[in-house]
């Protein structure tokens, strides 16, 4: 048996069913009694009401029984919670960094990826933080969730048993890309995972050597800048094909004449390098007219070198 396997009362689903069962009994009881009284004691059938002010015994009973029930439910939830918060010793640690609007996973040997790859049958501990605002890491299939809080590390763990691909959502509202902040958990057979994990990766921000990822040749064509724009989530709001999404398109951005709003006043500018840098670091300073001022600042998120790379890339988009 693998370590960390849950017992009967540790699983979320069993506690859920336990509460549902209690709730259904109560709900049906209340509703049936109510309907029966309304019909049986309708004004037609029962023209004269009887004033019953109360019944101490009955009231004590229906205070004590619910008290016992809710304490039992509390206990069941607490048991499961203890299990959820006790990480097995052999769990594989993965560092998770959330940002607007993407996930990045870093493994013990320094490998990074945009999808969470884990071996089947071994507990995984996620150590979670955020680079900007609050996010929430949620894997419905494993019944786990914990917020990503900037300046703080939170954790959760789970036991992936069946190989397969599972959804990973963001559940703490984080702005325009919130519902697109989705990735996958790839649970791989142990050998496949080991093969992926051991491959030497020269200084890469993100995964890219599995069979399906772009080849080295393609890599060169797209350039490191394109990859950065993808990984850092820029392309969620800025298109490459000239269509306006949440923000203005990247197509032909350098040298473009555009109207920006600077502290409430319109002015026309030509997009140059200085403007692009300012847009990355202080996006609220000049906002392109017609677009909402919602771009998050990249200060402290992109390094100087990365800013350079991205701007070179933007200039290349004719």
């Amino acid at each position: 048996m693998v370590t960390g396997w849950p017992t009967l009362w540790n699983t979320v689903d069993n506690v859920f069913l336990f509460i549902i069962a209690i709730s259904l009994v109560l709900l049906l009881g209340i509703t049936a009694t109510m309907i029966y009284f309304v019909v049986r004691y309708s004004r037609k059938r029962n023209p004269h009401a009887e004033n019953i002010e109360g019944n101490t015994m009955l009231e004590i009973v229906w205070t004590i029984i619910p008290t016992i029930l809710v304490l039992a439910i509390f206990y069941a939830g607490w048991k499961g919670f203890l299990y959820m918060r006790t990480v097995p010793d052999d769990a594989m640690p993965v560092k998770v960094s959330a940002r607007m609007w993407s996930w990045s996973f870093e493994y013990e040997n320094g490998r990074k990826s945009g999808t969470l790859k884990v071996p089947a049958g071994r507990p995984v501990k996620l150590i979670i933080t955020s680079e900007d605002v609050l996010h929430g890491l949620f894997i419905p299939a494993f019944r786990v969730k914990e917020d990503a809080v900037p300046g703080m590390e939170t954790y959760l763990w789970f036991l992936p048993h069946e190989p397969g691909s599972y959804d990973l959502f963001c559940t703490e509202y984080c702005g325009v890309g919130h519902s697109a902040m989705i990735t996958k958990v790839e649970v791989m057979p142990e050998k496949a995972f080991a093969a992926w994990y051991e491959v030497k990766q020269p200084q890469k921000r993100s995964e890219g050597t599995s069979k399906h990822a772009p080849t080295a040749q393609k890599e060169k064509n797209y350039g490191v800048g394109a990859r950065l724009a993808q990984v850092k989530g820029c392309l969620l709001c800025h298109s490459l094909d000239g269509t306006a999404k949440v923000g203005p398109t990247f197509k032909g951005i350098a040298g473009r004449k555009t109207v920006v709003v600077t502290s409430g006043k319109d002015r026309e500018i030509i997009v140059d390098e200085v403007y692009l840098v300012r847009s990355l670091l202080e996006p609220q300073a000049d906002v392109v007219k017609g677009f909402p001022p919602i771009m998050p600042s990249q200060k402290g998120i992109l390094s100087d070198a990365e800013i350079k790379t991205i701007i070179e890339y933007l200039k290349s988009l004719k």
Partner: protein
Amino acid sequence: METNFYTYSGKHRGILAWILSTDHKRIGLLYLSSMFTFFLAGATLGILMRLELIAPGPTIMTAQTYNAVFTLHGVIMIFLFIIPGIPAALGNFMLPLQIGARDVAFPRLNLLSWWFFITGGLIALTSLFTGGGPPDTGWTFYVPYSIRTGTNVSLALFGVFLLGLSSTLTGLNFVTTIHRMRAPGMTWFRLPLFQWSLYATGWVQLLATPILGITLLLVIIERFFGVGFFDPAKGGDPLLFEHLFWIYSHPAVYIMILPAMGAVSEIIPAFARRTIFGYKAIAYSSLAIALVGYLVWGHHMFTSGMSDASRVVFSLLTFLVAIPSGVKVFNWVASLYRGSIQTDAPMLFTLGFIFLFSIGGLTGLINGALSVNIHIHGTHFIVAHFHYTMFGGTAFAFFAALHYWFPKMFGRMYREGLARVAWFIIFIGFNTLYFPMFVLGWQGMPRRYYDYLPQFQTGNIISTIGSWILVSGLLLMLFNLVRSISKGEKVGDNPWGATTLEWKTSSPPPHNNFAEIPTVTTGPYVFK
């Protein structure tokens, strides 16, 4: 014939006779009309959200618009409709009448509260059309996002601040009135149960709302002057904001539900023609809910990164607050036993309330259990749960009370048949709209999602269809009520044969409420 408060001529004329009136009845109706205007705006936003979610991918709006729409839907429905809701509208009207007083303790403060309310509401709406565009933070204004976004958050926060001030002052006014202005012989245990609920609510408004006000001001200060209260980049703590926000906003759900429970406790005796079962238990449970309700806010933070020990304590306290709510439900059902029950519209809405609120409360047990909460936290399950308590609970009771007190307020009756049809459509629409969200949430669909994966589509389609049914029922109900204000059939002072004091005066009541202040000699629900 004596003049009623509509025909009474005071200092001012025309519209001024309303917006400068210190008569609690006129102020109540001011709240009622402004609140339902806001309600229609909020409902429209809700319909648009549901329409967007009928299919994955963009349907009728962009992601940014959607975020602004759900933010506004939340802000309007919570701060402009359901929190002021029953206390400010019906409470204002009925509180002095039910305790045999001529007005509230501070009539001018009461008017000022309405002015804060309407100004706050208008400022919040102005934030839509000015500055950096409509706020997109959600009604929870979580930091650091609310500090970093360039949209018009500060103005909206200031609007909500004023709304909070209005609510605090109303609470102060009501608590004082119930303490000081009861008619001779109206002892505490002869108070109608609606009064007990307003009293408990008043204390919550008075003690919890200032915390929200201060918190929102801190966010505004942080946005303008960069003082690092909450943003970790400036040395602040985002969890501190969550705590401060929910220290108010959890008790706020009791501001919303307690008066609803109070209204239901009035309607049941009136339509069952018998006294309420377990008067004291219902009265004390209002106080118990208000008291314990202060200490459970952490259940909104079970996945926030807060310490495990506090999660356990908050979970335990959350379960304790469920007990008095359960006791109330049992008492209501028992109050039907051997009654002589008439199922007019107010009673139908009340029965609907008991059923839907029970679902809301029981799914609350699911949320409160720590391990299960981790899975459903922040999903559509939560959206379904709070709509069952707030809409199925509070709003259904509000509608029940509105039908119940309609003849008292206007001296006329709505069309009973139409009201029943509207109730039926609303009940069906409500369940079609919100029940699928329980399933979606359990399947893992997060809330505040503009777009979703294909596996969630079925539930979303059903839910959107439900929104159409629901809104047609709501419109029918409002049409019936509005039309009957002027065209309804005239009825006597007490068409239901109810026993509390407000029914002892004429309908609509005279300016001074009672020709002569009554002397109370019995409990509130003594039927002959």
